[in-house]
Structures are given as C-alpha cells and as structure tokens.
C-alpha cells in the first residue's frame, strides 16, 4: 500500500536577549558555571518571576514573520515535573493562550509548487539548567553537578500543525527547517546556531494510507543535534513504520530517541508512561495584554522577509533566480548586495562577484558576511572598473583580495598599482617573445600540432603582467606569433 508521511516539528529556539526570561541575569554561555544566577533563576524560596519585555517582543516578532495571529491576552502556565536541572520543580511555559497562533511558513513543496506549512502555535518558555555528570549519565554517576547559568534563558517553541498542511517528506522537512532558521535569523530573534543548541528539534512522525483521512499512530523522536541527523532519524523512522504497517503490526504511540552512532531510533517511553505535567496557569505572573499598538510597532519594524525579497530583487535587478536565492539566503548578504547595487551599473556582474569571489574570500578566512571588512562603496567601484574594462578580472581579483586582507580602501590600492591594463601591443609582444624564448619545449610541442601548451604560455605571460593584461589579447598575440589561427586549429 502507498503511505502518506506526516511530519510535525516542535522547534526550540534560544533567543538573542541580553537577560533571562524572568530575571535580569545576563545570558552568557561562556561564563564560569553558576556565575550568572540569582534567587529567581535558581528557584530560591519566595522569589518571583518578572517577565522580560524584550522576550515578548521577540516572540511576537517571530510570530508575525510566520504569519501568526498575536493573541491580545496571553498567559504563562506551569509545567510540573521533577528533574535536578529544573530549579523550581516546574517549568514556566505556556499552555492555553500562547503568544501567537495559526500561522504558516511557505516552502517549495515536493511538487515544485509553493506550499504553506501550517504552524499551530508559538510560545515562550524558560530553559532548564545543565547537568554535568561524573560519568556519562545521571543514572550511572556517583554524583552530578548542576550549572544554572542556562536556567531561565528564554526559549521560543514553534509547533507545526499536523492538520493544516503538514510536511509530507524528508525533503519538505529539510526545506521547512532551513526556511524557518533563515526567517528567524532574518528577523533577528536568534542566531539559530545548531551547534550551540540555539535551534533544537523534536519531531513527530506518522504514516497513513493515501486514501485515509484519519491519522496513523505517531511517534515522537528526540535528541537530534543536526539537520543531517534529523534526516537520518526521519529516514529510519519512516522505514520502520512502513515495515510495521506492511506486516500488519501495530505502531506504538511512544517517544523515541535517535542514536547518532547507529543512526536508528530506539524507544524511550510509551504513551502510558508519558508524564502528567499538571499544567495550570502560573499564579505568580499576571496575564500579558498585547495591545494593537505594541503589535503594530513590531509589525512595522519587521524587515523584508526572504520571499518578498526574492520577488523584489528578481523584478528590480533582472538577476537569475538561482543567484537571487543565494543572495537572499542570509539577511546580511542581501544587505551587502543592496548597499552596492545602487552604485553599480552592472548588477549581474555584481551578484556574480559576490557569490563567486567574495564568498571564496569569506570561506577561506572563515568569516561571516557580517564581519566582512569591505566597504560596499569600494566593492561597487571595483565592479564598475571591471565593467568599464579599466581592469581585468584577474586584476580585480587580486585587488579584491588585497583590499579584503589589508582591510584598506580601493583608492589606496589603485594608486599603488598604477592601475590600468597593459594595452600597448609592443610591450605585450616583447613579453610573449621572452616567454617563448624561455619555453622552447612548449613551442616545439605546439609546432608539432599539440596545442595544449598554448594555455600554459598565456598563463606565463599573464603572470609577467601581474594580471594586468587582457588574456584574450595575449592569446591572440601568441597565436599570431606561432602562426595559428584564432580557433586554435
């Protein structure tokens, strides 16, 4: 039988706020253990939470970016359970009335068409502390230590809607996560660095016959620390469930853990063992009223989102869509492009140079676009010089490299380089003669009909000119000298 896969994510995103969700302790991950704590985030008797306004702004900002409705009245609830990293014996989270509900995120569906993945709710909650065990786990350790620096750090939970346009394949799941991460980074609520635990996912998977309207039993998978592992876990789980369905066996509703080494999921607890969290409204926190003014201000301050930007840039600049998608992948990249674009005559050349040459420099030096030392004005001017033919591509590349590494201005380099390509045919011819004299074997090969060394000779001449000649012109001169026609035959 043909099965339809239903995938739903619960994504936890750690916010970029200065202070914790309910106290004014600094959010710092590199601080020594238990150095960013206070009576509130360690759950001292008598302490009370006070809501961080910035975190609410971020939650609403994320919600609006995901086309959610912001609730005019929200409240916090307590999720009760015992664990040593949980200072109060409950987590302050949200149950009824989260900050945002009923949104969507548009991805490209498997059929190649836009697909609006349903988002059921977005809520705020506090993170727990971190346990450090004397061995690998709490159970097997003689003792464990708790670091409460992370306790109380704001987390945003974004929950997919399994009833409204759920994800239907691993590819869609991947697109969703990438798009979600991109969007949250765009609106500036989180860096979403997966390795730092700023973007964590649990995923629900179920299968149903394509003809069916009712959902199959679902399993929840936890403990996946990268997109790669999420894909691996989904692949394994879908295979496991379809195998069970094929042989007529029951799928247990349970929570499973992903085993990174073996790339399989293993049972963690069954539905019957699922804890009763005894949610109830937190009486220590008053309800949060969000007025239209507050929501409106956040809506007005939202940056242009990736989808809108793709449409606009394609229309305004006539750049190939693939290039636009790359330029808009990160807000900072598109910001750089947009800062240069008005100063450039040739936007296609600009985008190529960003994607090919600037990215290469950034990758080599392991820098992100946000700490790129280049001034957009200089970069644009460089593109204009290239476009006007005043410098060659090779010259452009070397200037760019120098400007990037020395963090200097374009004008300084241009003066020094006594810029301008070598156009003077006599000078070039002299260089061609020198190269020919130094490479008799190459000349001999070419004379015998093996044309391959021509490229080598061109390269040698270009090197002599320190890239300041037009390589096409050099090739012409060499070919003339050796009596070859232009197409090399």
């Amino acid at each position: 039988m043909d099965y339809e896969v239903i995938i739903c994510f619960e994504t936890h995103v750690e916010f970029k706020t200065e202070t914790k969700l309910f106290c004014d302790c600094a959010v710092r991950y590199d601080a020594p253990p238990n150095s960013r704590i206070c009576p509130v985030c360690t759950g001292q008797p008598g302490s009370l939470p006070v809501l961080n306004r910035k975190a609410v702004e971020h939650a609403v900002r994320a919600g609006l970016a995901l086309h959610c409705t912001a609730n005019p009245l929200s409240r916090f609830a307590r999720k009760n359970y015992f664990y040593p990293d949980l200072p109060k014996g409950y987590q302050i989270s949200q149950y009824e009335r989260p900050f945002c509900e009923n949104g969507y995120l548009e991805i490209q569906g498997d059929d190649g068409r836009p697909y609006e993945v349903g988002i059921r709710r977005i809520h705020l909650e506090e993170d727990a502390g971190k346990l450090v065990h004397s061995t690998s786990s709490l159970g097997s350790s003689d003792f464990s230590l708790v670091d409460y620096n992370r306790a109380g750090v704001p987390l945003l939970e974004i929950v997919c809607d399994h009833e409204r346009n759920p994800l239907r394949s691993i590819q869609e799941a991947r697109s969703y996560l990438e798009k979600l991460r991109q969007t949250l980074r765009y609106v500036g609520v989180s860096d979403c660095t997966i390795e730092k635990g700023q973007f964590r996912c649990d995923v629900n998977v179920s299968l149903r016959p394509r003809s069916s309207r009712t959902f199959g039993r679902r399993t929840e998978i936890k403990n996946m620390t990268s997109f790669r592992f999420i894909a691996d876990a989904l692949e394994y789980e879908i295979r496991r469930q379809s195998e069970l369905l094929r042989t007529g066996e029951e799928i247990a509703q349970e929570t499973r853990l992903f085993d990174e080494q073996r790339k399989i999921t293993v049972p963690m607890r069954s539905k019957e063992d699922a804890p009763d969290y005894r949610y109830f409204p937190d009486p220590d926190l008053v309800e949060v009223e969000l007025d239209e003014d507050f929501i409106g201000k956040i809506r007005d301050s939202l940056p242009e989102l990736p989808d809108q930007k793709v449409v606009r840039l394609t229309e305004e600049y006539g750049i190939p869509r693939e290039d636009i998608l790359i330029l808009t992948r990160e807000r900072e990249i598109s910001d750089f492009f947009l800062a240069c674009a008005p100063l450039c005559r040739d936007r296609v050349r600009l985008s190529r140079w960003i994607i090919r040459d600037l990215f290469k420099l950034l990758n080599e030096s392991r820098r992100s676009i946000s700490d790129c030392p280049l001034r957009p004005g200089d970069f644009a001017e460089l593109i204009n010089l290239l476009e006007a033919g005043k410098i060659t591509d090779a010259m452009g590349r070397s200037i760019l490299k120098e400007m990037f590494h020395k963090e200097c201005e374009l004008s300084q380099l241009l003066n020094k380089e006594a810029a301008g390509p070598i156009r003077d045919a006599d000078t070039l011819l002299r260089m061609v003669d020198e190269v020919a004299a130094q490479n008799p074997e190459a000349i001999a090969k070419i004379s015998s009909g093996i044309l391959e060394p021509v490229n080598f000779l061109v390269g040698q001449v270009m090197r002599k000119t320190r890239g300041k000649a037009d390589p096409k012109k050099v090739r012409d001169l060499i070919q003339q000298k050796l009596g070859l026609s232009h197409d090399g035959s």
Partner: protein
Amino acid sequence: MTMELCDQTAARLAALLRKGEIRSRDIVESVFRRIGEREESIHAYISTAYDAAMKQAEKADSALLKGNPASVLAGIPTAVKDNLCTRQMRTTCGSRILENYVPPYDATAVKRIMEGGAVMTGKTNMDEFGMGSSTETSFFGPTRNPWNPEFVPGGSSGGSAAAVAAGEAIVALGTDTGGSIRLPSAYCGVVGIKPTYGRVSRYGLISYASSLDQVGAIGKSVEDCAMVLSLTCGHDPRDTTSAPVKMDLVLESLRKGIKGLRIGLPVEYFVEGLDPRVKDKILGAASLLEQNGARVKEVSLPHAGHAISAYYLIATAEASSNLARYDGVKYGFRAEEVRDTLQMYELTRSMGFGREVKRRIMLGTYALSAGYYDAYYLKAQEARALIRRDFDNAFEQVDGLIAPVSPGLPFRLGEKMDDPLQMYLVDVYTVSVNLAGLPAMSIPCGMVDGLPAGMQIIGRPFDEETVLRVGHAYEQLKNGMME
C-alpha cells in the same frame, strides 16, 4: 500599676521615642526580658536575634536623637514570621526541609520595615508552610496561647500573634492565605490586618498558595497595624502581582469616625455552627457601632457555602507546585544514603515535610491531574468567581462587612490534630476573603471564659482605609465603655 514598655502600643512608644523619654534600646531590653520570662511556655519564636536587634536599636536611637527617624516604626521591636526571607537569619517556614536555610536576600516587606528603622526581634513560629490553623504543625513544636497555654494561639501566624499578645514583640509581620493573620489575632486577642491581594509585595514571602498569600501586620491596636502597613504597602517591580495602586495611608484618616458608614452583616455567617457566645459579642459590637452613627444592615453572600471547598482545592493545587522546589538538590534538607535521584526525591520529601504538608501536596496534585483538573481545579475557580461577585454585590449596598473570624473560641492543643476536616472548618469565615482578594481585619471584641473572641471587618478591594477606620472607631468606643 506601671506598664512595662513591652506591653505598650507601637504608637505610644513611637511618641515616647520622639520625645526622647525612652530609647529604642530600652524597649528592646524590655521585650527580650519578656521573651526570657515567657518564651519557654509560649514558644512564639523559631529564632531570636538579641545582638542584631540591639545594634539596630542603637542605630535607630542615634537617628532619633538627631530628630531624623527613618519612619513611624523607627526603633520599634518587630517580629517577623518565619516564611519571610531574611538575609541574616535562617528562614524555615516551620519546616524540617528548610531547617537551616539562610536566604540570599531579604523579602521586600522585611526590607521596607528595616529601611524604616524597625528593629527585628526574630523569626516567629508558624504552621509548616502556613498549612494549619493552630501553629501545631510546625517542625519546631507548637506555639501556645499566651492567655492560656493549654490552648492553641490559632494559625498559621500563631507565633507572631502570640509574641505581640505576650509582649515578646511590639508589632509583627504575618502572612495570610486563608485566615492565617486574622485567626491567630482573634485567638490571641490582638489586632491583625490582611491587606488587599496585591497591596504588599509577596517577593520573599515563601509561597504556600500564590494567588491567596498576602503579607500583613499584627499589633496591639489598629493604629499599630496601620503603622506597619504604611511601610510595607506599595508596588514592587519584583512582584508583578503587586498592584501599581498608590496608597497614601495617612494615619489621621483612622480618626475620621464612622458616622453614616454603611455596615453589612452577612446572614450566611451567622448561622448554626457559630458559637452563640462569639455571636453575641459580634452582634454587640455591631450595635455599638450602630449607636454611634453607622448604618447596620443584613446582606447576603449566597455562595459562602462553597468557600471552604474552593479554597482547599485552589490552595492545595498551587501548593503542590510551589513546594516542588524542595527536592534536596539546591538547598535545605537532603536525605543521605540514597540509591538514585528518584530515591533522593522520595526520601528527602517524605522526611523533610510533615503530615499536613504532605496531605495538602497530595490533595493539590490530585486536583491538577489529567482527568480531574476540570472537575476540581476549574470548578473551584468558577466558585471563586461567584464568591468574588457576592462581595461585589454586597459592597454596592454597604461600605464594609462585619463577621466572625472563626466559628468558635481557641481550642485545646491536640484537639483537632487528628481531624483535618474539623481543623479546616476553623477557617470557614476567613477563606472567602482570600478567594476574593479583599482587605480584612481581626479585632478583639471581648472575652469568653478567659479567652479572647475576635471580630472580622472586611472592606472593598484597596479600601484598607475604611477597614482601619471602622476598627479604630470600635476600639475607641470599646475602650470608652470599659473606662
């Protein structure tokens, strides 16, 4: 007969201090002398702090000498209930689980009275985590009624009320979740006020039931309570449930009198079950007020009968969650020699909490559990809304209510310890006020068989002024009669 300093009101002592006739140190000495004489039989305190108190008294004295006392309470020995966090003294909540817990911070109410120059005598005994009506559930042993040590002082602020009644403190901070200030004040023959929910910051008050808990004052007179309240009240950014409502409590306003004030007697509170001797005292007080210009009429609070059940569901539900933090991980008592984390939790909590606390944690856990939440917790919240509406309706007709504090007089130690339901019913007239978040006061209204009887005065939200006014007027009238 000359009165000892420790038996005088804070208002009188404050006047003497300002005139330079006495020093704060004299009062502290007097109070600690009394503690030396009576503490062994009363056991009002869990911890006392003579040395620290003397230092604070010296500081207050030098400010007074310069004519610059920090507040009306400057130099006045004040006892603090042991569920209010104090940085320099252990804060136990009357529980083994916090037996040696020294908080890293001061509760806002404590901070405010200390900044006002008050002298802290020590931390008073209480029912464990405020769960009890007799101060018998304290891990540190019961407090006894200063009027007769065979009787309970009421609870849970029994230590604070007994200390004030016995002259072991001049005034005291208490807390009230379902009657915990008013009941012991009535049983010990002193005045106690529970302000409107949100009037005083709960920051640093160790939670029993967050939506009901409130910090209040106990004193020998209405004016004494008002003096304490004038310092502790006001918005605190650390407690979002503390109201951003200004209170300009001018002590003079107490003396405005009661001419024309409309006072209601809730008919549902004067029914079978109320000790007729207590009933007579309260009705006598009402007619005294009526003779002096108040207009007294009967009103109805039709949902009063649901108060006890609603209270014990909501309070225990919140408590089951509030007390989850006592797990042996971070502070307080931890059971040793355990196999694993789960056993550490089990043993720590089994050994660290007393019977009544465990009973209420179980009740509350049950009320919040899947499948029971709607029938218990939500239903109780509905009842709470109805009870609140009853009061709103009553306050359209009257400015204040007069009611009993408790159905009976103080009972004997041990009398109700094996019958939790009987113990819970002691609070039948006080819990509604917490459910509705109203200000209410308990004021002595006479003696029956050598034991004090108390009367409750209930006001509109944030109208402590009327409550204090009625109380003060009654106090004056009663004293006038006695003279």
